[in-house]
C-alpha cells in the first residue's frame, strides 16, 4: 500500500538507476546528482530506513555490477559515494562495503551523509583495522578517514564515539588536536571513566591522553587527579610547574594531602620560600586537626563520649548484665578501644585525658591501669588515637608515659606517638627521633610498639633512614618471630606500592629463614603480607617476586602466592585475577591449608575498584558462603567489609547480620567486626540497633561480646565524622596507604583468635591509616573556613551524556562545612564563589567570582 507520493518517488528513483547505466556521461551525471540529492534531503525518523534507501534496495546489486564495468572517472567515484551510503543498510554482515566504496569514492565531506552513516563507517573501520593488523597491511587510507570521522564527532558532541574509534584503531594521540574548549571536559570524563574498564596497558595510555588534554586546557586539578591515579610523581611535578596560580597550587596541595602521599616541593614548583612552606604544610596535613575540629565544633559534637554512651545499655531490657562489681579486663579493653575510636581526633575523652588530679579516688585517672598486660599497651596507644593528627599536644600528653616503669605502657606510648603522626608529616620528624632508639631495645613488646609506630607514622614515606633501622632486624636470626612479623608489616607500609627490591629481598630472606614450626604460627602470615604491600596495585611488577615465592616452603607457598596476587592487583578491577582467585576458593582443601582466606579477601581487594565489579563480587561471595568450606566462610564477612567499607549497603548488612548469629564463633566474630567496618563512621542507626541486640544475645560470651563492643565503637568512629573508605575524590582515587592499613587489619582478622582476641589487639590501630574526615570544608583565599551554601545529594553518573546533565539527585542544601556520606556529591549553591577543585570533597579553596552580581 503505497501512497501516490511514494509511488512517484519510487518511479523517479528507478528512472535514475536506469539513467545511471546510460551511455551518455552527461545523463549519468545528472542522474547521480539527483539520486544523491534525494538521499541527502530525505529525512526520516530514527527507527525506519529513509525512503530513498528503501526504494533503491532492489537496485543495489545492479548498481554494484554496473560500477564494476565503469572505467575510472569522476563519475565512477560519484557512484562509489552513493554505493557507500546504500551499503549502510544493504551490505551483508561483515562485508564492510560501505567502507570499501567510501575508500573508492570522492572523499567529500563525510558528515554530509548524516550521523548514522558516519557511525556505521566507524564500526567498519574498527573491523577493517583489526583485519589489516593481523595481515600486517597498510592502514594509511583508513587513518585518513579516521581523521575525518573524529573531527566530525568532536564537532558534534559525540566525544565518546570519537574516543571509541580512536581506541579501536589504537591512535588516541589524534584526539589532542581535535579537542577544544567546548568538548575537552566531556572527553576527559569519558576517557577517565573508560580507563576503569580497559585492560592494561591501554588504561594507562588513555589516562595519559586525558592528562595531556587537561594540561593543554589548564585544567590542572583534573590533571593532578590523573597523575595521582597513575601514581606518576613526574606528572605531579609537571602540574605544579605548569600552573602559576599560587591559590590553585594550594588546592593541589590539599588533594595531595588527602591522597596521603609524601611529596616534597622544590623551588622549581614554587619559587617563593614563604609560600612554599605554607604549601608543604598543607601537603603534610599539618592543619588537618584544626580543620577537623572546626567541623566538629560546627556540628556541635565536641563533647567527649564515654563507652557507655555508645553501648546504650538502658535501651536493652532485662538482659544486660547488671553492672558487674568486678572489672573485667576484656570488657575494659573493649571500652579502651571504643573510647579511642569514638573520640578519635577530638583531643578529649572521658577515660584517658581526664586530668588525674581531678579524679576522685584516682579511679578515672588511672584508666590505663584498669587494663591488663597487653591491654595497657593498647590503652596508652589509644591516647595517640584521641589526639590524632594533633602532633604538638599529642606528644606533650604522651610524654609522661615514656617514663613509666611498665614495659607495656612504654610500648603503648611508642605506638601512640606513631598514631599521632599518622598521615601528618613534620620537618622535625618527631616520630623517627623518638622511636628510633627503642627499635633495638631488649623487650620484644617495646620493639613492636616502636616498629609499628614507625610503620604507621611513615606509611608511604619510603624513608631510607627507617629502612636502615628496620632491615637489620629481619636478618638477625635472634629476633623473635613477633618482632619480625611487625617489622615486615611496617616495612611494607613505609614502602607501600614502591616495588622496592631491597626491602623485598630482606622479607623474602626472613621468610626463608623461618623454621617449620614458625611457619605454622599465625604471626608468620604477616611476612607475605608485608611483601605484598610493597607491590600494592602495581600489577605485573610483582611477577619476579611471585616467581621467587614458588621456592618457599609449601606450608606458606600458596598463602604467599595468594597474598602477592591480591595485593598486586588490588583496586584494579581485573576480572581475570578475580577468576583466578575464585578458582582457588573452589577447591575443597585438605586440613591445614589456609591460603583460601587471603584469596577471598583478594576477590574483594581486586574488585572493589568500580561499582559493577563490586556488586558482582558481593553476589559471588554469597555463593562462596553457601558452597565454601569453613575457612572460606570465615573470611567472607571480612571481604564484604572491605567491599562496603564505611558504606552500609542494606543487602550486605542483612547478610552480615545473619552471619553474626552463625554457629561457628569465628564466622560470627568476623561478621560482627565486619558490621562495624561497613558502618564505620556512619552512626548508622540500623547497624547500631543490630549491635545492641547482639550485645544482649552474646552477653555471656566474653569474646563475642568483645567483638560487638569493637564494632559499636567503629560504627561511631569519630562520632560519625570519619570514614575508612580508601577511595576518595568521587571514588576515582585510591589512597594506597589507607588500603594498606585496611588490608593489614583484615589479614590480622583472618587469625582473629591470635591477633584481635589474643595478645596482639594493637593491630586494630592499623585502621588509623584509613581514617579521614568525611567532610567538605570550604576555605577562603587565606585558608580560613568560609561558610557557603552547598547542595549535597546522591551522585549521578553523567559519563557520555549530552548537554549539561544534573550531577546529583535528591539533594538538600546545607552550609559548609558538611558531612558527605558514601556516594554523595556536593555542588556549590551559589555563584558568588568558584571552587578551585572540580570535586568538592575535603578542603576546597573558594575564589570570589569576578563576574558575580548580587541579586537585588
Amino acid at each position, binding site marked *: 500500500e503505497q501512497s501516490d507520493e511514494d509511488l512517484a518517488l519510487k518511479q523517479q528513483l528507478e528512472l535514475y538507476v536506469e539513467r545511471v547505466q546510460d551511455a551518455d556521461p552527461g545523463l549519468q551525471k545528472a542522474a547521480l546528482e539527483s539520486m544523491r540529492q534525494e538521499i541527502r534531503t530525505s529525512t526520516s525518523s530514527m527507527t525506519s530506513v529513509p525512503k530513498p534507501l528503501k526504494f533503491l534496495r532492489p537496485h543495489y546489486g545492479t548498481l554494484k555490477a554496473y560500477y564494476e564495468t565503469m572505467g575510472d572517472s569522476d563519475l565512477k567515484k560519484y557512484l562509489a559515494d552513493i554505493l557507500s551510503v546504500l551499503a549502510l543498510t544493504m551490505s551483508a554482515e561483515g562485508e564492510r562495503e560501505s567502507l570499501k566504496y567510501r575508500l573508492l569514492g570522492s572523499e567529500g565531506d563525510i558528515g554530509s551523509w548524516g550521523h548514522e552513516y558516519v557511525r556505521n563507517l566507524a564500526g567498519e573501520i574498527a573491523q577493517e583495522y583489526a583485519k589489516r593488523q593481523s595481515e600486517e597491511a597498510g592502514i594509511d587510507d583508513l587513518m585518513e578517514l579516521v581523521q575525518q570521522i573524529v573531527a566530525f564527532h568532536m564537532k558534534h558532541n559525540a566525544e565518546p564515539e570519537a574516543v571509541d574509534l580512536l581506541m579501536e584503531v589504537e591512535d588516541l594521540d589524534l584526539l589532542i588536536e581535535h579537542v577544544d574548549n567546548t568538548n575537552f571536559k566531556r572527553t576527559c570524563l569519558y576517557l577517565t571513566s573508560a580507563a576503569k574498564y580497559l585492560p592494561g596497558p591501554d588504561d594507562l595510555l588513555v589516562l595519559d591522553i586525558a592528562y595531556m588534554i587537561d594540561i593543554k586546557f589548564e585544567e590542572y586539578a583534573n590533571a593532578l587527579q590523573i597523575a595521582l591515579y597513575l601514581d606518576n610523581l613526574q606528572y605531579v611535578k609537571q602540574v605544579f610547574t605548569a600552573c602559576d596560580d599560587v591559590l590553585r597550587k594550594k588546592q593541589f596541595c590539599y588533594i595531595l594531602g588527602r591522597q596521603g602521599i609524601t611529596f616534597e616541593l622544590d623551588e622549581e614548583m614554587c619559587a617563593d620560600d614563604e609560600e612554599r612552606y605554607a604549601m608543604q604544610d598543607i601537603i603534610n596535613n599539618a592543619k588537618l586537626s584544626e580543620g577537623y575540629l572546626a567541623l566538629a565544633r560546627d556540628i556541635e559534637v565536641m563533647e567527649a563520649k564515654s563507652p557507655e554512651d555508645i553501648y546504650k545499655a538502658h535501651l536493652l531490657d532485662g538482659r544486660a548484665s547488671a553492672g558487674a562489681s568486678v572489672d573485667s579486663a576484656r570488657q575494659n579493653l573493649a571500652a579502651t578501644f571504643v573510647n579511642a575510636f569514638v573520640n578519635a581526633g577530638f583531643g578529649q575523652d572521658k577515660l584517658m585525658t581526664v586530668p588525674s588530679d581531678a579524679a576522685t579516688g*584516682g579511679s578515672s585517672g588511672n584508666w590505663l591501669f584498669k587494663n591488663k598486660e597487653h591491654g595497657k599497651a593498647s590503652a596508652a596507644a589509644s591516647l595517640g588515637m584521641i589526639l590524632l593528627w594533633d602532633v604538638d599536644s599529642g606528644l606533650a600528653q604522651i610524654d609522661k608515659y615514656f617514663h613509666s616503669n611498665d614495659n607495656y605502657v612504654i610500648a603503648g606510648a611508642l605506638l601512640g606517638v606513631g598514631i599521632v603522626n599518622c598521615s601528618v608529616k613534620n620537618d622535625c620528624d618527631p616520630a623517627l627521633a623518638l622511636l628510633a632508639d627503642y627499635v633495638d631495645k631488649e623487650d620484644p613488646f617495646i620493639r613492636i610498639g616502636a616498629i609499628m609506630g614507625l610503620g604507621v607514622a611513615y606509611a608511604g614515606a619510603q624513608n631510607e633512614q627507617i629502612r636502615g633501622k628496620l632491615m637489620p632486624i629481619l636478618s638477625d636470626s635472634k629476633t623473635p618471630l613477633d618482632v619480625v612479623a611487625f617489622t615486615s608489616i611496617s616495612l611494607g607500609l613505609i614502602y607501600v606500592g614502591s616495588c622496592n627490591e631491597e626491602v623485598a629481598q630482606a622479607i623474602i630472606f626472613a621468610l626463608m629463614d623461618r623454621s617449620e614450626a614458625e611457619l605454622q604460627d599465625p604471626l608468620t602470615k604477616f611476612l607475605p603480607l608485608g611483601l605484598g604491600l610493597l607491590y600494592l596495585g602495581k600489577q605485573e611488577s610483582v611477577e619476579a617476586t611471585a616467581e621467587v615465592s614458588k621456592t618457599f616452603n609449601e606450608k606458606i607457598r600458596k598463602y604467599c602466592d595468594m597474598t602477592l596476587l591480591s595485593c598486586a592487583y588490588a583496586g584494579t578491577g581485573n576480572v581475570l585475577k578475580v577468576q583466578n582467585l575464585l578458582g582457588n576458593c573452589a577447591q575443597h582443601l585438605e586440613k591445614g591449608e589456609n591460603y583460601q582466606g587471603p584469596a577471598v579477601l583478594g576477590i574483594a581487594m581486586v574488585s572493589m575498584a568500580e561499582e559493577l565489579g563490586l556488586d558482582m563480587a558481593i553476589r559471588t561471595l554469597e555463593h562462596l558462603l553457601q558452597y565454601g568450606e569453613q575457612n572460606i566462610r570465615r573470611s567472607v564477612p571480612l571481604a564484604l567489609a572491605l567491599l562496603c567499607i564505611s558504606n552500609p549497603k542494606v543487602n550486605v548488612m542483612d547478610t552480615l547480620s545473619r552471619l553474626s548469629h552463625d554457629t561457628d564463633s569465628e564466622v560470627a566474630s568476623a561478621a560482627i567486626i565486619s558490621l562495624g567496618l561497613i558502618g564505620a563512621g556512619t552512626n548508622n542507626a540500623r547497624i547500631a540497633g543490630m549491635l545492641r541486640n547482639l550485645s544482649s544475645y552474646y*552477653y555471656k560470651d566474653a569474646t563475642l561480646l568483645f567483638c560487638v563492643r569493637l564494632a559499636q565503637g567503629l560504627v561511631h568512629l569519630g562520632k560519625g565524622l570519619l570514614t575508612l573508605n580508601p577511595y576518595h575524590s568521587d571514588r576515582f582515587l585510591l589512597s594506597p596507604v589507607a588500603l594498606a592499613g585496611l588490608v593489614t587489619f583484615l589479614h590480622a582478622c583472618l587469625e582473629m583468635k591470635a591477633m584481635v582476641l589474643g595478645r596482639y589487639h594493637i593491630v586494630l590501630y592499623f585502621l588509623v591509616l584509613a581514617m579521614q574526615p568525611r567532610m567538605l570544608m570550604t576555605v577562603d583565599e587565606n585558608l580560613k573556613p568560609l561558610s557557603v551554601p552547598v547542595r549535597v545529594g546522591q551522585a549521578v553518573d553523567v559519563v557520555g551524556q549530552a548537554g549539561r546533565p544534573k550531577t546529583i539527585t535528591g539533594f538538600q542544601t546545607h552550609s559548609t562545612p558538611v558531612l558527605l556520606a558514601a556516594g554523595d556529591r556536593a555542588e556549590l549553591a551559589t555563584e558568588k564563589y568558584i571552587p578551585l577543585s572540580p570535586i568538592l570533597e575535603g578542603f576546597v579553596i573558594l575564589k570570589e567570582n569576578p563576574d558575580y552580581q548580587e541579586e537585588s
Partner: protein
Amino acid sequence: MLTVSVKWQKKVLEKVEVDTTQPPYVFKCQLFDLTGVPPERQKIMVKGGLLKDDADWTAIGVKQGQRLMMMGTADEIVKAPEKGPVFVEDLPEEEQVAAVGHTAGLLNLGNTCYMNSTVQCLHSVPELKSALLKYPSERRNEVDQTSHMLTAATRELFNELDKSVKAVAPMQFWMVLRKKYPQFGQMHNGYFMQQDAEECWTQLLYTLSQSLRGSSSGTSENADALKDVFGIELLSRVHCQESGEESSEAESVYSLKCHISHEVNHMHEGLKHGLKSELEKASPALGRSAIFLKESRINALPRYLTVQFVRFFWKRESNQKAKILRKVDYPLELDVYDLCSEDLRKQLEAPRKLLRDEEGKKLGLKGKEKADSKDTDVKMTDAEGSSTASGESSKAATLSDGAPSDKEAQLTGVYELVSVLTHKGRSADSGHYVAWVKQENGKWIEFDDDSPIPQREEDIVKLSGGGDWHMAYICMYKARTVPM
C-alpha cells in the same frame, strides 16, 4: 651568637640563643628556665634525631633561625596504682559467680533434664540449703545407706552449684539417685529414659525429709526440718451422702494438687478442685462400699508452698502418661486464705492485717506525696519503689528471716512465686523439662540444663499452657511473712 626557635607544645619559643661551644646540656638548662621541664625529661628533635646531652653542635649542623621541636612535660610521671584492679578473668571460679549474678547450670547426662530442673528449683530454697549444711557426714543408724548417700550427694551438688561459673555435671548425684530409686535407671534402646519430674521431686523430697529428720544436733524440737519448709497439713472431712456418716482425718502433704478439668481456667480453681475428692470405701453403716466425699482444708501452711499441676493422666490406649495442654493461669502472688480451715484463718487474721497496713501505708504515702507536689524527686523514687514492691517486700521478708530473734516471722497466707518447673512435649516421659528460678537479686533465670538464660518476670506467667510451648508443671511459692 646563633639563635634558634623551639617549638614546645603549642608554643614557639623564639630566638633562643645557642652557645655552640658548650655541650647541648647547657642549652637544655636554658630551656628548663623557659619551660620548667627538667633537662633529663627534655627530648629535642633535630631532623629525625634526638639531641644528646653530650653531642657536638657542629656535627648536628644547626643553622641560624632553625626550628627545633621539644617534647617533654613537667607533669607527674604516671605510676601504677599500688593496688591494681582485680579482674574477673583472674578470680578463682567461686568469686566469678558473684559477678555473674546467678548460679551455674547443670549438664544434661542423657535425658536428665527432669532431674536437673528439679534440682535447680530446690536449690533456690535457702532453708533447704542450710538444713543440708547441718547434715552430718557420718551416717546415723536410723537412716539407711542409700538415703544417706543421696542426701550427702545433694549437699555436695548444691555446694558445687554455688561455687561454679561453668555448668556442673551432677554425676555423683545421678548415680546415687538411681541407686536409691531404681525406676530412674530405666533403659530404652541403650539410653536412660526420660522420667517424670514430679516423681523425682516427690521422691527426692521424701528422702531428704527422712534423713534430715532430727539430724540437727539431735534436738527433738526441730524434729522434722523439711516439714516446716514444705509440709502442708490438711484437715479433711470425709462424708458419705448415702449413709450420712462423717469422719475427719488429718494428713500432711508436700504439695497441693491443681486439678485440671474443663471448668478450670485458673490455678485457684484447680486447687479448690484438688481439695475435694470422691472415694469409694467400705461403709460400716451400709455394710458395703459406698461413695464418700472428701473435703480438705489447709490447717497449717509451709514456708514454701508447692503446687503441682495435674497435667498428666494415664492414657490406656497409648500406654503412656498423656498431657492436658489446657491453659491454666497462675499468679505471681498467691493468696490461699480461702483454702484454709477456720482455725488457721483466725491465726492469719492479725498478720494479714499488718501486711495490708504496710502495703496501704506505701500506697497512702504515695497519695500524700501527690498532694504535696513540692518534692517531685522523692515522689519519683517512691513511685519506682512501689512499682517494684514485690521485689522490695521479698527483701523485707528475707530480712526478717535473717533476724528472727527480735520478732517472730508470721505467715500471712500470701505467697509469691519463686520457681517454676515447666514441661514441653506431649507426655511426661518425653519432651523437655526446664526450671525457671527467681534469683536473690529479683531477676529470673531460665535454667535450660547447662545454660542459664535471663528472663523477664512478665514472661514467667506466660508459661501457663494452651500450646506446645513450655508450660508450668510444678510451681513453688514462697511465703510472705510479717514480723510480729
